C-alpha cells in the first residue's frame, strides 16, 4: 500500500505546487534578485571615491604602519577578489558587519531604524490611498462640482511641487510663524522616555505600553511629515486612478450592468473594482517615491530613520553601512512590489502568470 501511497501523495503535492506556481515562483525569485543586487552593490560601493580610513583618523598624523593596521582591521586590505569572497559569504549569512565610523553593528542600527521609516511610509501610503479613493470617486461621480474642478488639475500637477519644498513651507508656516504644531525635533518630545520595544513601531509600542502622553506626542510630531508626504505624492496616484476610472466607466461590463438595471451602488462598486488593479499596481511605485521622500523628510524633521543613515553613510564613505542600507532598501522595495503584485493577482486572477494575456 505504502509503495503506492507515497508516490500518490508525492504526486498530489506536486500537483498542488503546480497550481500555486503563480505565486510560488514570484516569492522564490525574490532572494535571487536580491543576491544579484548585492553583487551590484559591492562594486558600486567600491567605486565611491573617498577613503574611509582618512575620515576615521580625522586627519591626524598617523604612521603608515598604523594606517595599514587600521585598514586590516576594517577589512579593507587584501585583493578585490578576496574582499568579494568575504562579502558574499557575509551577505548570505546576513552579516552586514560594523559601521566604520562608530563601530556599531550595521544590521543592529538598521533594524532599529527600519520600523520607524516603514511606519512613516505606510501611514502616508494608507492616507494617500484613502484620499485617492474618495477624491477619485467624487471627481468622477460629480464631474461638475467644485471639488472635481479643483481635484482634476491638482492631479495633473502630479509631483510638480517637491516634498522638501512642501516640508520647509510647512515648518515655516505651522511651527515658526503660528506655533500650531510641535517642533520638528524628532519622533516625540525629547524629554519623554521611549516605550519598551515590542514591535519596533513607535506608535504601536506606545499603544501597547498604554502611554497615552507618548502616543499623543508621537502623533503630533507625525502630522507634518505625513502631511508633506501625502500632499506631495497623492496627485500621482489620483491621476492614475482617475484615468483607470474613466476607462472603467466606458468599458462594456459597466454598460452591461447599467443596461441590466443594476442599482447605482452596484454599478459604482463594479467600476471601482475594475479600476482598482491599475491603481494597486501604482502603489508599488508610489511606495518607492514615498521611501525617497522619507529620506528628505527625515532630514527636515529629525526623524530617526533609515534615510538619515543612508545619507550619512554616503557622506562618510562608510562602506558596510552603505552596503547594508542599499541592500535593505532594495529588499523592502522588492518585497513591497511582490506584495502589490500578489494582492493584484488575488484581486484579478487574469493577471496571474501562465495565462494568455497581452503585455506584462
Amino acid at each position, binding site marked *: 500500500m505504502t509503495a503506492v501511497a507515497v508516490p500518490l501523495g508525492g504526486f498530489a503535492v506536486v500537483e498542488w505546487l503546480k497550481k500555486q506556481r503563480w505565486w510560488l515562483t514570484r516569492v522564490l525569485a525574490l532572494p535571487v534578485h536580491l543576491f544579484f543586487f548585492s553583487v551590484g552593490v559591492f562594486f558600486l560601493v567600491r567605486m565611491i*571615491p*573617498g*577613503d*574611509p580610513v*582618512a*575620515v*576615521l*583618523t*580625522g*586627519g*591626524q*598624523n*598617523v*604612521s*603608515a604602519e*598604523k594606517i595599514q*593596521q*587600521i585598514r*586590516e*582591521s*576594517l577589512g579593507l586590505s587584501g585583493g578585490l577578489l578576496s574582499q568579494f569572497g568575504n562579502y558574499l559569504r557575509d551577505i548570505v549569512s546576513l552579516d552586514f558587519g*560594523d559601521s566604520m*565610523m*562608530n*563601530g*556599531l553593528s550595521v*544590521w*543592529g*542600527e538598521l533594524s*532599529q531604524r*527600519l*520600523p520607524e521609516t516603514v511606519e512613516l511610509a505606510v501611514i502616508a501610503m494608507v492616507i494617500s490611498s484613502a484620499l485617492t479613493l474618495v477624491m477619485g470617486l467624487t471627481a468622477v461621480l460629480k464631474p461638475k462640482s467644485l471639488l472635481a474642478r479643483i481635484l482634476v488639475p491638482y492631479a495633473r500637477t502630479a509631483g510638480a511641487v517637491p516634498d522638501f519644498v512642501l516640508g520647509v513651507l510647512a515648518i515655516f508656516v505651522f511651527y515658526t510663524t503660528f*506655533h500650531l504644531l510641535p*517642533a*520638528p*525635533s*524628532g*519622533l516625540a518630545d*525629547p*524629554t*519623554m522616555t*521611549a516605550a519598551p*520595544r515590542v*514591535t*519596533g513601531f513607535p506608535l*504601536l509600542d506606545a499603544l501597547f505600553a498604554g502611554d497615552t502622553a507618548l502616543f499623543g506626542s508621537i502623533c503630533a510630531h507625525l502630522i507634518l511629515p505625513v502631511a508633506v508626504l501625502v500632499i506631495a505624492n497623492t496627485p500621482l496616484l489620483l491621476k492614475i486612478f482617475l484615468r483607470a476610472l474613466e476607462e472603467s466607466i466606458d468599458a462594456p461590463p459597466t454598460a452591461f450592468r447599467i443596461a441590466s438595471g443594476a442599482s447605482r451602488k452596484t454599478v459604482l462598486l463594479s467600476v471601482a473594482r475594475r479600476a482598482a488593479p491599475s491603481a494597486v499596481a501604482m502603489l508599488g511605485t508610489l511606495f518607492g517615491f514615498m521611501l525617497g521622500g522619507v529620506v528628505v523628510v527625515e*532630514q*527636515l524633521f*529629525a526623524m*530617526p530613520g533609515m534615510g*538619515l*543613515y543612508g545619507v*550619512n553613510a*554616503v*557622506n*562618510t564613505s562608510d562602506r558596510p553601512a552603505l552596503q547594508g542600507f542599499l541592500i535593505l532598501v532594495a529588499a523592502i522595495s522588492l518585497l513591497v512590489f511582490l*506584495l502589490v503584485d*500578489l*494582492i493584484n493577482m*488575488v484581486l484579478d486572477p487574469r493577471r496571474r502568470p501562465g495565462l494568455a494575456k497581452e503585455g506584462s
Partner: protein
Amino acid sequence: MFAKRVLIAAAVAAMSTAVISACSGSSSSKGSAGSGGAVVVVTPDTSWTWALDNGFGGLEPSMNVVGATLIRNPYKDTGTNGVLAQNVSDYEPYLAKSWEVSADNKTVTFHLADAVSQQGNPLTSDDVIWSWERRFGAPTSISPSIQNPQITSLDQFKKIDDKTFTVTLDQPGHLSTFFGLIANVTAYIYDSKYLKAHVTSDDPYAVKFTTTNPNYGFGPYTVTNFQPGVTATLTANDKFVLGAPKIKTIIYKIVPDEGTRLNLLKSGDADVALNLSPSDMASLKTTDGTALLTAPDPNSYIMMPLLGNKAPFDKTLVRQAMAYAVPYDQIINDVFHGQAFRKSSAFLRSDAPGYDGSGFTDFKYDPAKAKELLAQAGVSLPVKFALHVSAAEPDMQEAAVQIQSFAKDAGFDITIEQVPASAFGEGRTNHTFQAFLLLDYSITLTPSYELNVYTALNPDGSPAGNNLGAWVNKDFVAAKAKADSTVTDPYTPEAGKAWNAAERIFINEAPIVMIAQIQPTTAFRSDLKGITWRSDQWIDWGQASKG
C-alpha cells in the same frame, strides 16, 4: 467571492507587517531617565562613538562619561553669561591629587586620588597603565601618533604602588607638552578591572565592547539611555571624585537641520544648541533668554593651506601673494557676522606668558601688493587653481565664494570644488589638493605642540598626514628642534623668543594662511550657568548649573 479575495489580500498585508517587526533588532535602551529639570542639548549627527581608540569620531558626550584625566586645565570665569574658560597654561588635580617633577625635569611622580569608577571599582595605578596599553595596542587607536614623541613606549610608565606611579620622558623639553597631552582627549583613564573582564580574542582591548557599553570610566556622568543616531541620556554620577554635578540629567538629541536647532533653542524647547551658523549666532545676540558661548581667545581657526608640493603654490612668492589676496574683513563680517576676529597673521596663543609677537609679516587684503609679488615670481596672470571645500561645512563654502570674488583683482582665477566629507578627508591627508579651506583647532595648546601639529614630518622626511600645506622647510625644522631641546619652562621670555624664531618662518613662508579665529558655535538659554569653553570645544557638564 470578491470579498474573500480582499480578505486574503489584507491578510497578506498584515502578515508582512508581522514579518517586518519580527526582524526588528533588540533595543539598546538601558532603562528610563528622569524628566523635569533635565537639560536638553540639540546637536547635528557627528557619528558619536563611546569607544575611544576607535578612530576619531564625535566624542562630546563621551568626554563627560569616560573623560576623566589625571590632571586638567583650571576654569576661569569670563564674566559674561556665566561662561567658564579653560586656562590652558596651567594645570590642577583631577584623578591625580598631586604630582612632583624630578630635578632633571624628566620624571613625574603621580599620586592618585580616591576615585571610584562608574562600575564601583576604585582607581589604581593598574588602571592608568592598562589604559595606555590599550591606547598603544588597539589597531584602530590613533593615540600613539598624537603622543609621539613625548610618550612612545609603555616602559616609560612604572608602578610604585596602587596609588603611585611615575612617567619618565626622554628629554626635559617634552615636559610641557606631556602635561598638555595628559590633560586631554588621548589620555582618558579607563576602568581596567571592568574592561579586562570583557576582553575576548577578537577584541583584546574591549574596544568593540565599549561601542555599546559606555560606562567604563571615572567621569561625572553615566549613560542611562542610548539610541544611536537619535539620542543619549546622561545621568549625574554622585560618586564623582570632584563632587556630584549640579545638573542631574542631560539629554542629547540629534537634530540634523541647523534652522530647526535654532528654533528649538529660541522657543525654549532646547537648552543648548550646538553647531549653529554664524549668522544665526549673531542674530541671537538680540534675542531674549539666550546667550552665546564666547571665548576670550578661541583656538578654532579658519585656515587655507596652500600646498607646496605642486604648482602654483610651490613658489613661496605665490603663496605670499595669495596671503595678500584673501578678503579678511569680508570673511569676518559677511561670512561670520562678527563671530570671528583676526588679531594678526600669527598663530601661537598670544595670551601665553612670555609670548613674543614680533617679526611677522602683517598680511592684509592688498591686491596691488599681491600682483607685485606675482610679477616678482615671474608667473603669468591670472594664476589658476582649484580651491577645495568640504560639502559638510557650509561656512567654508561661503568663505570660498568671498575669496574667489575678491582674489580676482589680485590676479587669481579660482574654481571652487566642493567634495563630500570623505573625499575631502582623503585629499587633505594625501596632499592631493592645490589649496583648500577648513576650520580646525588643536586640542593641546602648548607652543611646542601647536608648532608641530600642522608641520610634522614623517621619519623619512615627507610631510605627515596633518601637515596641511605639505611643507618641508629646513630652517623651520632646525629652529623648532632648537626650541624643543633647550626649553624646559615654555612660558618664560627666553622660551617665547625661541618659539618666535620658529613661528616667524612658519607665518612668513605662508604654507597655511591663518585667516581668522572663530568663536564657538554654541548657544544656550541664559538660565544656564557654568557653560565651559574648552580647547576640545566640548562642554564639561560637571561645571554647569541651571537657574
